[in-house]
């Protein structure tokens, strides 16, 4: 066993046992962040804070929610909204948080794409980030089942049906996932388990991994400059903070993050109090009814772009396209063949690729909500889906010929 001296303070006592001083140095006070960054680099901490809000509000909801097909709807819409003190506040925080977290995730992702933050040692940051995206998607979907409204039921029906694999007709798999022929009690209970236990654990694990992958490559910066961290850190520690290109994570980087978070929370709570409807679809305030298909079935806004990639094609082709769209962003670090780590504006054709991809995903999102019966919208959807794949096919070629900066 290691040899322990008598500690002279609580801090020292902990340091002997946990090396907290080393941890603090490595993870906070001497975790160097480039100075040349903008508020988009605060989005990661904004995401962490939003996830925190979701966890806290979720715990309060969990104390009253009843995962039973006969009780679920009223436990949410009556017990929590009417009888529980501030239950409405927790619910609206949870609902708005679940929607806004995706907005910030998309901003965070497109920031990474714009500045090329997924290359040259940062591949794992990107991959763990995509892992988070997938885990959050599953978390959001499973949560959407819980109020057991019309959209819970029918979205659950439509999405689990996808697992029949089109012409493969793997209905056995669909039933296995549902635990029944149609979404019913077994379905609700297992999605409840996923939503409140398994997926949050996965997310927390992935966040730790994501943070871990950031430590060695350090975060990127506005110009993609390759910083000599040893030199910059030496300058900083010598007190030459003006000439050093870095700042410590704590407290300097955090000071700015916390300011950005404050502004974000003004907006967040404005939405929670005055504009929460966008995050809570009206259709889901009709109780689930397996005999009455709603006029329009569509997913929440953050899934619309991939839903629209599924829709315009024939059954099998659509499924394949959808499956590829779900995972293609994982491949970004490997399809981008250019060695340049720089903002898109300085990167030749990639500049156009970036904006085309952003706009294409937006157009797909818009079309994904509209009824497929309108020929014009269906055609725009089809073209945007084709453009989506064309862009991914073009990516290795246009980045290959990109001039080295």
């Amino acid at each position, binding site marked *: 066993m290691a040899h322990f001296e008598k500690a002279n303070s609580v801090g020292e006592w902990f340091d002997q046992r946990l090396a907290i001083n080393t941890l603090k140095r490595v993870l906070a006070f001497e975790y160097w962040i480039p*100075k040349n960054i*903008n*508020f*988009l680099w605060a989005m990661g901490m904004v995401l962490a804070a939003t996830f925190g809000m979701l966890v806290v509000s979720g715990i309060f909801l969990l104390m009253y929610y009843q995962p039973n097909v006969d009780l679920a709807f*009223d436990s949410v*819409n*009556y017990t929590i*909204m*009417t009888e529980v003190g501030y239950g*409405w*506040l927790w619910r609206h925080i949870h609902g708005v948080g679940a929607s806004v977290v995706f*907005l910030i995730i998309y*901003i965070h992702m497109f920031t990474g794409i714009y500045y090329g933050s997924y290359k040259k040692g940062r591949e794992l940051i990107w991959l763990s980030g995509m892992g988070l995206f997938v885990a959050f998607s599953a978390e959001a979907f499973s949560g959407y089942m819980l109020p057991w409204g019309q959209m819970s039921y029918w979205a659950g029906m439509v999405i689990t049906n996808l697992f029949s694999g089109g012409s493969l007709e793997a209905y056995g798999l669909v039933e296995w996932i549902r635990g029944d022929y149609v979404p019913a009690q077994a379905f609700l209970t297992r999605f409840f388990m996923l939503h409140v236990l398994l997926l949050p654990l996965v997310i927390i694990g992935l966040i730790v991994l994501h943070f871990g992958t950031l430590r060695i490559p350090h975060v990127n910066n506005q110009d993609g400059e390759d910083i000599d961290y040893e030199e910059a850190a030496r300058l900083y520690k010598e007190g030459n*903070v*003006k000439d050093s290109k870095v*700042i410590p994570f704590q*407290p*300097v980087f955090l*000071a*700015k993050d*916390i*300011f950005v*978070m*404050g*502004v974000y*929370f*003004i907006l967040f*709570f*404005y939405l*929670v*109090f*005055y504009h929460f409807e*966008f995050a*809570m679809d*009206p*259709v889901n*305030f*009709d109780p689930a009814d397996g005999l009455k298909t709603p006029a*329009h079935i569509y997913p929440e*806004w953050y899934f*619309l772009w991939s839903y629209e990639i599924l829709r315009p094609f024939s059954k099998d082709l659509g499924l394949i396209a959808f499956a590829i769209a779900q995972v293609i962003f994982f491949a970004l670090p490997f399809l981008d063949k250019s060695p340049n780590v720089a903002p898109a504006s300085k990167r030749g054709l990639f500049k156009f690729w970036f904006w085309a991809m*952003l706009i294409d995903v*937006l157009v797909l*999102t*818009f079309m994904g*909500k*509209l*009824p497929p019966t*309108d020929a014009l*919208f269906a055609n725009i959807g089809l073209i945007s889906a084709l453009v989506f794949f064309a862009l991914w096919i073009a990516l290795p070629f246009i980045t290959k010929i990109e001039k080295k900066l």
Partner: protein
Amino acid sequence: MNKINKELQILGVVAFFTLFLYWGVEPFAHSQMHKHVEGEGFAYSEFKASGKKGNVENGKVLVTGAGACTGCHGIKAINSPAPMDASMSGASYGVNPPDLSTAGALYNAKFLAELIKNPAHALKVEHKFDPAKGKMHPMAQFYGAGGDMDQEIADMVAFLKSIAPKEMTNKEAYVDACSRCHANRYGKLTQIGETTKFKYKKDELAHQIKVLDYQDSLKKYMGKLPPDLSIIIRARSEHFLETFIENPQSQLVGTSMPAVGLSHEGFEKVIAYLGETGDPSKPARGELGPWVIIFFVVFSGLAFLWKKEKWRGHH
């Protein structure tokens, strides 16, 4: 300064795309998904006013006599009880005729006159009730009491107006206008009245059977059980509710729900009640919201000062 400009530029780009995204998935999508229906604010311009001035005294005589209204309807305001209880009415008419105490305020006067003359027409359910095919509306048509029929109708309407309360609660309006068809479980209302607490399980079950029996009659009459309206205020847009209640056919062609004929005031009360049961946190939101936002404004201000302090000398 330059740095701040750049941050603001980036913020502008992010804000632009965020708002564009919002526009596309909310206002634009909804404008494409739902058919557009114009209401006319409960004016009932299709029904003509006879222009006759009603006589309250004569109206009372007609309503309780030749008009036969009290043969089917109760009028608590003049201590005239309903001839049958809800269950029996349900069994006889398919639905329990509402108490008429509030009718003069709840319904539009032109609508009421039309209703007395020709219920199926006023209620816009002629697709279901056609005397030529032997399908009579359960509310008997008034054929006149021997005098000028328009005058007699004006008298009855004047009487109903005279007994209508100056102030009715939102709940009263809802109960008289909608409750005979729609339950509201968050408001603890069934189609046949408030959900009461019973001491004995037997009584409770007996009551439940009564409710179920009534619902069976209603199902037969309407073709389906009208939905519970507890939280309809969040399930439909306000515009939908307004135009649908004014004229159900405008939104759901062929539906068996009648055009209830609410006055504008009656509509506002009904909607207010639906808000009380379906969105009860509205007042609390209004109260707490500003404080939370002020908190974060102050928080951001302090955070900004802290940031300035920490970044001093860094540029």
